[in-house]
């Protein structure tokens, strides 16, 4: 059986660098799993629930980093001289990563809260703003899905990406 034309022209997008990065990541994930679940002792106060923190804290930092990258790339696209679509693609990809990791943060956080506080959710400022940030970037991704040429989509998304960042930070630093 001969391969279909689509199969024959499909090219791998990986490079030597991304493959090495992937292998290093997998090894580190295994190492983290071993340390987090087996080698490290349970916490004096939180018991085994502390192991959720080994996932929860990195995921929230990664999500924030991804949203910062989205804002920076949106600014670079809008205000850069060449209006490079590369920045738009990085902004979009970074927002997708941010949304996935923010979802993981919310899920792992609520599981930790159920064990520690007895409830999945508490209406404190940090949790609420985190949930709002999550929904804001879901909206950003929805805007990216709107019709139009690539340039128009990029300009629109860059504006929304830039507007989302300070508003989220304003909500985070509110008084009281």
């Amino acid at each position, binding site marked *: 059986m001969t391969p279909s034309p689509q199969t024959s022209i499909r090219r791998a997008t990986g490079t030597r660098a991304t493959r090495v990065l992937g292998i290093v990541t997998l090894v580190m994930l295994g190492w983290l799993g071993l340390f987090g679940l087996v080698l490290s002792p349970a916490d004096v106060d939180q018991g085994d629930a502390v192991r959720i923190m080994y996932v929860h804290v990195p995921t929230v930092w990664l999500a924030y980093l991804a949203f910062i990258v989205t804002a920076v790339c949106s600014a670079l696209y809008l205000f850069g001289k060449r209006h490079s679509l590369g920045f738009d693609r990085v902004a979009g990809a970074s927002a997708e990563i941010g949304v996935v990791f923010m979802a993981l943060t919310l899920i792992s956080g609520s599981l930790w809260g159920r064990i520690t506080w007895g409830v999945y959710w508490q209406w404190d400022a940090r949790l*609420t*703003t985190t949930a*709002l*940030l999550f*929904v*804001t970037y*879901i*909206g950003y991704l*929805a*805007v990216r899905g*709107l*019709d*139009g040429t690539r340039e*128009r989509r990029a*300009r*629109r998304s860059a*504006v*929304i990406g*830039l*507007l*989302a960042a*300070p*508003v989220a930070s*304003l*909500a985070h630093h*509110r*008084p*009281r």
Partner: protein
Amino acid sequence: MSPGRIRLARRLAAKDLLIERRSRVLVNQVLPFSGLVMVVFAFALGTGGVLERAAPGLVWLAVLFSSLSTVQRSFGLETADGAMESLRVAGVDPIALFLGKAAALAIELLVLVTVLLGLAVVLYGTEPRAEGIVLLVTTAISATLGLAALGTIYGGLAAGGSGRETLLPLLVLPVAAPVLIGATRGVEAALGTDRTAVSEGWPWVGLLLVFAVAIGVGGALAFGTLIED
């Protein structure tokens, strides 16, 4: 800001308000809807002290939900017969367009807020106090300005058919959270809900004003890009 731009913004706002005066959509549809939302809240929460305590938040929730219809109506006018496209092609300054639409929306929302605060007195038994009136009015105006600017930015983006209308709540509601929180706390302090002092409301007015200015400036600069298709 140039006098020409201000004059143009004023004309655009007057045009929107004239259309509203003739069509009476705010009076005949949005106000009854927001009144209904207030009544439905009462059904859901039951009578007693809960309603009175939650009244400031319920008023602003009803304003927020009703503002979505008002924004959709405001931009529906422009897209129905390609008016926005005509304004763009005619070279109308996007900043003036943003300011005009936002000003008209702010006036409409201010009417809505006034009616809903009055309804809260009648339906939820809230009692305004004399020393909180200045705070109440300042909170209402600053929150309305922020909501109008926000609605204009995202209304411009969500107008234009092909399933964009459903985007509006998803975009507006998370970003409007600081307004909802600030306006609720401001009105709570003005009314003295839970024995809150009037002085506790002013930091929230500060937050509302910062929000309105930030969104207003950002929106004025970004509006041209958002409505270009």
